[in-house]
């Protein structure tokens, strides 16, 4: 019965109750869209890794077919973009087949990805097509590609042709597995994405909680009216819960629909590691989707009930249960435990055995999460300090009211600004980690190529095999007992910046040795200068690939891309996260402002009637937000750097200050969130007009 009354009040209570329901539903819907999108990160990267896993199959890949096949893949480049060039030769009638294909390409046949097919059609034959000898007979389906733009070609060969290739990368395989060979690397990305998701989840959940509380003030008035006619506290709570639950269920459904649209937009527009995603990758696991769809309405309903427990809804009206005790410095305990845990575990890791070390490694995410939770816990305390500080220095009414508001309910204030502050924390933290990671070696110790030079790493082949590449200007290095040798260091310096010793064996790099050509040593690397045009480089690449199929071929452009790719992708991801969180933050701030205004509609309207200017009311609302946000954001930057330092110490990474660009990004982001949220200010005029002064 009470349930039905709640339903009736929610949907048949006239325009105002419908509007309230719509506001709650809209807020929850936005939260659900953002929540689901932030949960897709992991599955997106996982999907890529699993579908492209066959491209790094090796002898250890579990068997799926009765007959084996020879398999070799090489990472190639076209104008800086990576391409997978694979060679395959069946060793029996029933060889394994990679995903995305119905059968292995036979000798003289080539299977290509759709993007590769388009590239081949638009590029001159001597620059690219000739690199894939044979006739294109099949298209690799999506289930064998990391992403829609991946460039893959699988060339069919006879066993004899492939048998000529002397490479440790040529495998006899009986299956094409689904996990990439560098799975630990992907696991690393997954941990990063998991941490990112945790950092994103907290703001989104806060936002959903806030959205479900926008209409709290007017709901409390109605509850008093229900109590007046004899409803018990429990019945009043059920009515409120039904009303919020209904809004949340509608919002969740709306959010789910919005997510279905949103994930298509993300797939079409967002790139990571230089490529778009398949729509099927931007998807939440069914159990996670079910959890969100059931959990969000539950969370919203629980929030209402908890909020109601702090309100005395009596027959004559509602009142807060007195002043809540102000937050104390004890709240810093989890934060101290998180940062302290990382710092304390770092030296322990160096002295304990490997197994204990791994256990300690597993604790790292726990300490990071503890740090984040700790930061959320001290947020209200920081807001309270900000409020008291502002009250002390305020000389004008807007500042004073804003300061008192912050200090009287610092938890509510932090809820409003918490998302921005958490975003600031997350960006600063991740920027420090990225900066720290970038200090590692990046060029693999092979030196930096001069512009226009093509480097062909053969792995050691007879001179005759690469003779066509050995033009007058080409430079070759040959392996010896004590490193690599070159005819002339001066000649090498023209093609690559690499340490070269002209007097005796080099400790690092290459040593000069005259008369190498007649020594019969194999050739390990050939550097071929070109005129620097992509066409000339591609022609050399094609020639080299046909001579030594397993050769690794680079140009300066490729090397730069390769080295910086992962980190630039991480930076791109970081920027993406920042924009995402900024969006959540702006929504949260807007909802926070909205809730603050709606809650104080009457006193604000009466103050306005008494002569307070609209501009002064706006200042109050803006100051409440800005003061708390600036103080907590500033502290957040400091704490994020402290946390990232502790993380760097724990992970044996070199910690560096985030550069000025990061601080600028944070500053502009905070300002942008504030400006976006100021869009709620026109509402202040509407809700404090004459209507709100009347009692009826």
């Amino acid at each position, binding site marked *: 019965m009470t349930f039905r009354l709640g339903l009736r009040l929610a949907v048949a209570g006239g325009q105002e109750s419908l509007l309230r329901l719509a506001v709650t539903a809209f807020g929850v819907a936005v939260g659900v869209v953002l929540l689901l999108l932030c949960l897709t990160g992991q599955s997106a990267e996982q999907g890529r890794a699993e579908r492209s896993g066959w491209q790094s199959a090796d002898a250890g890949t579990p068997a799926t077919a009765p007959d084996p096949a020879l398999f070799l893949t090489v990472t190639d480049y076209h104008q800086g973009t990576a391409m997978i060039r694979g060679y395959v030769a069946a060793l029996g009638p029933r060889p394994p087949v990679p995903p995305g294909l119905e059968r292995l390409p036979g000798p003289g046949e080539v299977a290509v990805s759709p993007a590769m097919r388009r590239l081949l059609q638009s590029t001159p034959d001597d620059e690219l097509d000739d690199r894939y000898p044979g006739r294109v007979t099949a298209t690799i389906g999506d289930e064998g590609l990391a992403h829609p733009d991946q460039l893959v070609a699988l060339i069919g060969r006879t066993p004899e042709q492939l048998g000529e290739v002397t490479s440790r990368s040529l495998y006899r395989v009986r299956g094409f597995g689904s996990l990439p060979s560098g799975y630990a690397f992907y696991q690393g990305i997954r941990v990063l994405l998991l941490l990112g998701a945790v950092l994103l989840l907290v703001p989104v959940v806060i936002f959903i909680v806030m959205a479900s509380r926008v209409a709290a003030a007017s709901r409390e008035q109605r509850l008093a009216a229900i109590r007046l006619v004899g409803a018990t506290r429990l019945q009043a709570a059920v009515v409120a819960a039904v009303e919020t639950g209904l809004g949340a269920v509608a919002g969740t459904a709306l959010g789910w629909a919005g997510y279905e649209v949103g994930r298509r937009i993300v797939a079409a527009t967002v790139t990571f590691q230089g490529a778009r995603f398949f729509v099927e990758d931007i998807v939440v696991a069914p159990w996670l989707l079910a959890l969100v769809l059931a959990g969000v309405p539950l969370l919203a309903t629980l929030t209402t009930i908890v909020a109601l427990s702090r309100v005395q809804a009596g027959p004559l009206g509602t009142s807060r249960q007195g002043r809540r005790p102000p937050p104390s410095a004890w709240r810093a305990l989890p934060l101290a435990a998180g940062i302290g845990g990382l710092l304390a575990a770092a030296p322990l890791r160096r002295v304990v055995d490997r197994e204990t070390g791994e256990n300690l490694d597993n604790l790292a995410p726990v300490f990071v999460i503890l740090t984040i939770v700790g930061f959320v816990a001290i947020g209200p305390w920081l807001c309270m300090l900000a409020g008291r500080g502002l009250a002390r220095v305020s000389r004008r009414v807007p500042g004073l009211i804003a300061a*008192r508001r912050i200090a009287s309910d610092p938890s509510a204030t932090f809820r409003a600004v918490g998302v921005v502050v958490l975003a600031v924390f997350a960006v600063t933290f991740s920027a420090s980690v990225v900066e720290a990671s970038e200090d590692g070696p990046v060029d693999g110790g092979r030196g930096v190529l001069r512009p226009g030079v093509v480097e062909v790493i053969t792995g050691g082949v007879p001179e005759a095999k690469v003779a066509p590449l050995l033009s007058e200007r080409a430079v070759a290095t040959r392996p010896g007992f004590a490193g690599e040798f070159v005819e002339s260091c001066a000649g090498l310096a023209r093609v690559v910046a690499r340490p070269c010793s002209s007097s005796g064996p080099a400790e690092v790099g290459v040593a000069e040795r005259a008369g190498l050509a007649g020594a019969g040593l194999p050739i390990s690397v050939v550097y071929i200068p070109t005129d620097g045009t992509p066409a000339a480089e591609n022609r050399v690449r094609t020639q080299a690939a046909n001579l030594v199929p397993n050769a690794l071929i680079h140009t300066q452009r490729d090397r730069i891309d390769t080295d910086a790719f992962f980190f630039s992708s991480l930076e791109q991801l970081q920027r993406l996260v920042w924009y995402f969180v900024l969006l959540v933050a702006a929504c949260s701030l807007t909802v926070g402002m909205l809730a603050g205004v709606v809650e104080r509609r009457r006193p604000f309207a009466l103050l306005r009637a008494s002569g307070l200017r609209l501009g002064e009311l706006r200042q109050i609302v803006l100051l409440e937000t800005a003061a708390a946000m600036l103080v907590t954001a500033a502290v957040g930057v400091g704490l994020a750097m402290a946390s990232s330092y502790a993380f760097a110490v724990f992970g044996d990474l070199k910690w560096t200050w985030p550069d000025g660009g990061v601080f600028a990004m944070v500053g502009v982001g905070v300002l942008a969130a504030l400006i976006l949220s100021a869009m709620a200010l026109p509402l202040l005029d509407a809700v404090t007009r004459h209507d709100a002064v009347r*009692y*009826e």
Partner: protein
Amino acid sequence: MSRILVGDDLHRSFGLTRALRGASIILDEGEIVAVMGPSGSGKSTLLHCLAGILTPDRGEVHFAGRRIDQLPDRERVHLRRTVFGFVFQFGQLVPELPAVENIALPLLLAGRRRRHALAAAAPWLSRLGLDGLGERLPGELSGGQGQRVALARALVADPTVVFADEPTGSLDSVAADQVMELLVDAAREQGTSVLMVTHEPRIAAYADRTVLVRDGVDALGLAAP
């Protein structure tokens, strides 16, 4: 006594509802006038038009000989914050400000230094029987105490006219009498005019004169003395 506030032939509609239909009223300096009438008769609308919160659709409002209903909003706001004081039925106190700061609010709005504004507000606490309650938040005060704080806030800036809209509407009779006695005493002491809307004859009895409003007009023709 000179006329301080005059409302002449005031009309005001809200959509299809005609709240005022030619109401007229005069308030003299230092005079306390009660506006009475049944619910929905337009008495609050009349008060809001006279105070410059609303502008009438037709008719004129004069304050101290100056027509104010045609002033731009900015100037009407200035009037309300400098020469008018307000007491409403409930909910007018800023919930986050302690009582003493709520009282000091008009002085702070007028640009007085905070220290001076609080010093000027403090005597009102004892004057209205609120000793020791200055640091309490509105939510920690009883209804009567809250209305006394509102009263102090309305009078602290020494306004020319206090507009009181059902000032005792949410109080029991004992608290209502206390508030009215304080309002009348303070107004008399300061020479402040009071225009008070009420539907209780007992409260109206505190006034020098009563105007009865019915269906948007002054029903008994007692608008002018």
